[in-house]
Each structure stands twice: as C-alpha cells, then as structure tokens.
C-alpha cells in the first residue's frame, strides 16, 4: 500500500524479569495508513500499551524489543541509532498518555513547555516558536490566559488539552494516544473526544494510534480496530465490522460485556474466568481457557492469522479447515 505510514511486522516485546521472561507482545503485525486512526483495544495485561511504547522505542525497563520490524514511512525504526530515534520522537511520532500531570514539568509554565517542545525539535526562531505555541493553544481550545498557568493550576480536561497541544507541537505524522480520556469524567471526556474528532478532520494528514480498554471511546474516531489479548492479535477490521460482525469468540464476548444504556434490561455479560497470567500463559490459543467454543486444536496450536472476510482478519481455529465456523460464523452466537 502506497499510503502506509506505520508498518509493524511480527513485533515481539518482552519484559526480562529476574525469574521469567514475560512475552508482553508476541508477534503483532499491523499497519496504519496516512490520515487513518487505528484503535488498539485490549484489557489489562493484553500488551496494548507495550505496542505504543515499542513504536516509540521507549519501553520501560526491563522491557526490550526482542524482534520484528517497525517501519515509519519505510524507515526501519529498529535500525536507527539513539540520536536518529530521538529526532523521530516528538517530531514524527508524539504521544498523549493518561496522566497529563506526570508528563509536564510541574515547575514550568504550560506555555513555556510547549514553546520548548517546538524549539528543541524544530529549527525556528524564538518568536516563531511562541507564535506556533499560541496557535496550538487555539487549536485545542485552551484560553490564551492559560498560557502562563502552571500544570497544577489546570483542571484535568485542560491539562489533557495542553498535552494534545504539546503532542502536535512539531506537526507529527503519528500521534499515539494511550488511554487519553480514562482519568476524566464523562463530560470532559466527551469534549476531548470531540477535540480529537475535529483535529482529525482539520489536520488532514495526521494518523492516530488510539489505545484503550474502552471500545466505546475508540469507536467514534477509529476507522480500523485491532483487538489484542494476552500479547497476541485476536482480530482486525473496520470498526463497524468489529462491533457488529465480530468474528473472534473473544471479540464477540468482549463487545457483549459493554453495558448499553439504551437497553431496557441488563444485557451485558461477563467473560468467565480471568485474563491470562502472562508469566505463565496458556498453550495454544491464549484465549482457549475462557472460550466457550474451544475444541481440541485450541489447546495445542497457536492459530494462524487469516483473512476470513475482505480486510477482516482473525486468529482462531474455528475458521481454519476442520473448524466449526470454517464456512462462516453462525449468527445467533453470543
């Protein structure tokens, strides 16, 4: 694909603990096109945040990228030296995280921090950087009077806006948003989502990797969704397909576990069991101990990644030859 911006192939990121190696991400491949938003969905321990930190090559210790390819515009990021990678961070790939408070220097005014972000990474005169910072404030709908505020003087929503402004400071090609609204109340969250919507349509070339545990938050912005579980890819496809025509038993159950306020009675269900212990993951398909459709093969072999419908991929033995859903999934399954 010509317009592919980020191309991740067989990414493996492991945490090397003293007694055990945790395979937080174990063979994940996906792409993000220019101007596309990809939602990466998973529960705690799925490895979703590890994907974001791996792309930035900023895994916390003792995490290391054990293998794979991460290409941005064709350049393999894993082959760059530290200095080259430093230039990519912020300028080409920026990140917005859950806790804006810990991402800012508490002793420095917000405006100055954004000016600094602009001038460290871009060779422009001071006045230019100030101008750019002020226009970023406008873009994220922060009042100009807040330019001189310290981080603690801002509300949670304003800090998140400031963080988005800082992420956009150097006009990156890709923004990784890792649970950007999780700590916010619902009305503030709605505004940040609206802001992300409008930035996505005004900054036409911006690509977004939106990582979250909350499918409903991601669904409004992302064109595509990747579902991860236990460090493995479960399913990938267009957002509406993932929600309405889920193929993987995990995705089907996961979608059903979201309460719908418009329903008349409790219609959401739990997935039995618990997420895998990543120090000692199950054999075969990582989801098999919780899967109500699991059969003999699921315990033994890791399922292959298969395009079951056009642009709709799934890793599940049910769809392989001999599997119960080889010719399509029955529609009354839940």
């Amino acid at each position, binding site marked *: 694909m010509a317009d592919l911006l980020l191309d991740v192939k067989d990414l493996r990121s492991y945490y090397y603990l003293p007694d055990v190696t945790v395979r937080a991400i174990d063979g994940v491949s996906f792409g993000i096109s220019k101007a596309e938003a990809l939602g990466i969905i998973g529960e705690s321990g799925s490895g979703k945040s590890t994907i974001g930190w791996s792309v930035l090559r900023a895994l916390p210790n003792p995490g290391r990228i054990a293998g794979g390819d991460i290409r941005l515009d064709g350049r393999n990021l894993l082959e760059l030296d530290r200095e080259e990678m430093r230039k990519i961070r912020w300028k080409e790939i920026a990140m917005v995280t859950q806790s804006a408070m810990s991402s800012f220097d508490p002793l420095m005014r917000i405006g100055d921090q954004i000016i600094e972000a602009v001038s460290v990474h871009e060779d422009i005169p001071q006045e230019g950087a100030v101008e750019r910072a002020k226009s970023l404030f406008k873009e994220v709908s922060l009042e100009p009077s807040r330019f001189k505020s310290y981080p603690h003087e801002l509300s949670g*929503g304003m800090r998140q806006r400031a963080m988005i402004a800082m992420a956009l400071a150097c006009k990156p090609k890709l923004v990784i948003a890792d649970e950007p609204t999780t700590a916010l*109340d619902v*009305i503030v969250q709605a505004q940040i989502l*609206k802001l992300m*919507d409008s930035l996505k349509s005004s900054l036409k070339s911006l690509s977004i990797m939106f990582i979250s545990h909350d499918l409903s938050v991601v669904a*409004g912005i992302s064109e595509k969704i990747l579902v991860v579980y236990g460090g493995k890819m479960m399913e990938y496809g267009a957002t509406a397909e993932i929600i309405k025509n889920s193929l993987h038993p995990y995705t089907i159950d996961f979608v059903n576990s979201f309460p719908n306020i418009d329903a008349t009675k409790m219609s959401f269900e*739990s997935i*039995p069991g*618990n997420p895998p212990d990543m120090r000692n993951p199950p054999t075969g398909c990582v989801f098999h101990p919780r899967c109500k459709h699991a059969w003999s093969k699921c315990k033994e072999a890791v399922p292959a990644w298969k395009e079951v419908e056009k642009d709709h991929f799934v890793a599940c033995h049910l769809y392989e030859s001999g599997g119960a859903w080889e010719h399509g999934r029955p529609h009354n399954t839940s």
Partner: protein
Amino acid sequence: MEDLIIRVEQLKKWFPAKKRLLERGGGNWVRAVDGVDFSIAKGEIFGLVGESGCGKTTTGRLILALEDKTGGNIYYKNQEIFSLKRRNQRELRRAMQVIFQNPYESLESRLSIFQLLSEPLKIHGLASNESEMHSKIREILSEVDIAEPEEFLHKHPFELSGGQLQRVAIARALILEPDFVFADEPVSMLDVSIRAGILELLLRLREKLGLTYLFVTHDLAISKFTCDRVAVMYLGKIVEIGQSHEVLGRPLHPYSQALKMALPTLDADRRTYRELPDVIGGEIPNAIEIPSGCRFHPRCPYATDLCKEKEPDLRELKNGHYVACHYAEDLQGKSHVTVLTNRLS
C-alpha cells in the same frame, strides 16, 4: 411507609479549605455535601451517580459514620447514628458494611485471605472457636463463587486477579452478616469483561441475604441496570431522583441529560457526545465558591436570570420522579429539548 433502612435529612459535610499563607479569618469551606435528603427502603438498591467531586462518595462515608457530619441527620432504622451510644455504634459497625472501589488498596497485602476474613469475625466476637470460624469462612467464600476455598485461604492478595480480589472484599463485608452495604464504585477498577459477573453477584446476594445497598458509581449505564432508584448529584446536591429506568431512560434535569449525552457508545448512530452544547463543558465550579441560585446555571444551556437568583427545589414531576430545575416542565415541551430527549430515549 414501608420499612426504611436509611433516611437522610438535610445532610451536610463541609471540609475546611486550606488557607493560603498569611490569609486571615475563618477560611473557606468546601461544601462537599450540601443539604441532601433521601431514604432507602429495605431490600432496595439505591444509586448515587455523578462526576468526581459531586459528593456521592462522601455521602456514603457519612452514612457509615466514616466521617463526621457538619449538619443534618442520618437515621438507620429510625435511630440517628451520630447520637448513638458507643456500644450501639459497635453494633452498627457490624450491620453496615462497605465494599471499596480498589480491592488492591482495601485489602492489606501482608495478610492471607484467611487472615483477612477471620479478622472481622474476631473483632466482633462472632466465632466462638476455630472450627466455627473456618466454617463461616468456607460458607461465605462459596457465596461469592470462590470454588476451592482450602487452597485459596493461604494465598495473599497479590496472587489473585482483580475479580477474585473484589470477591474477597465482598466476602469480607458480608461475613459479618450486615443488612446494609455501601458499594463504592465496586467494579470501576475491574476489566470490562468481568464487571457483569460482579454486578450479578451483588444482585444475587441481595435476594439471598436480604441486603440493602447504597451503590455509588459514575457509570450511568451500570446504575441503570443495577439500581432500583437513583439520585443524580451535582456540587453536593441532588438534582434529580427517581426510578433508575426513568431517570436514566428519560432524564429531565439538563445536567442529567448532559451526562447521558456525553456517554460514548458502540452504536454509530448514537454518538450524542458530539452534540453536547459547549457551555456544558464549561469549568466545573469548585465546591468552595458555589454559584448563586441553581448551582448548574453557569453551565446550563437553558439558564435564565431566575436560575442565577433562586435555587430550585426538588419537585415531583411524575410519580416518584423529582427534579430540581425551575424549567423542568417547560423544557420537556420545548422543541430543541424534545429533539434532544427524543434522541436520548
């Protein structure tokens, strides 16, 4: 009137605000709970919903006497809890229990599951010997669907998953055979895929053990399906109260409507958060400088001068459905609001 377990009258909790250096005088007050009335019937699940800082958790903590009140009264079965004698307070501490939001914090990590569950029995003298203690612990663990209690008893909290841990926290609250339980955001720290199981457990235990719950949550959808009645709180006051399917199905207060509109959903045709009026997103005033008149007026798209001047009372609009808004009746008829509420219902 049916049996009331809890009755709250004009409950107030003001916290002293931090004084700035060199500031003189009495200082300011954070009016966390500022005149709240409601009652909870036996066997009922009563929900308090609202955003952080609205006073919902403080209200629950006051009912359990985990905080001192500033004003008003709290009756547990017709006894005012703050005027009880010490010995009776001890009985109350058994009869009223709490399930906290974060089981990782609420369960002491150095203790084994056995120790965590036996401690409350010892404190209240509810087991006369070891074997009685063991049998009570086994019994309560099977109530919360923990299958293999024996091997489980020697584990420590860090060895359990979030869902198992919250089941232990529920067992710990219920082992004292309370009749009232304050559940403070009991599923919000858990993965989405296991929340429904914990909620079903709470509902089942209510039936089986005849419990009454105060259920505090920020999650409107969960409160709609878990609670019988809910109250929506804003800046220390109740703005709307009624049957949960009414209040969350067709909210009447502009604030409750905004909360519902702001919810992201899986349904691509119902992304109402995008239509949320900008004024509602205005700064949430702090609970020190509470706006005059209706507390919501600076953020309300329908506010008039009356709203700035006069605080609205909670008025009954439909059977058992109360709303604190001067224009609650009019708003239902107005075209743009009709459009809005129609979209929401």
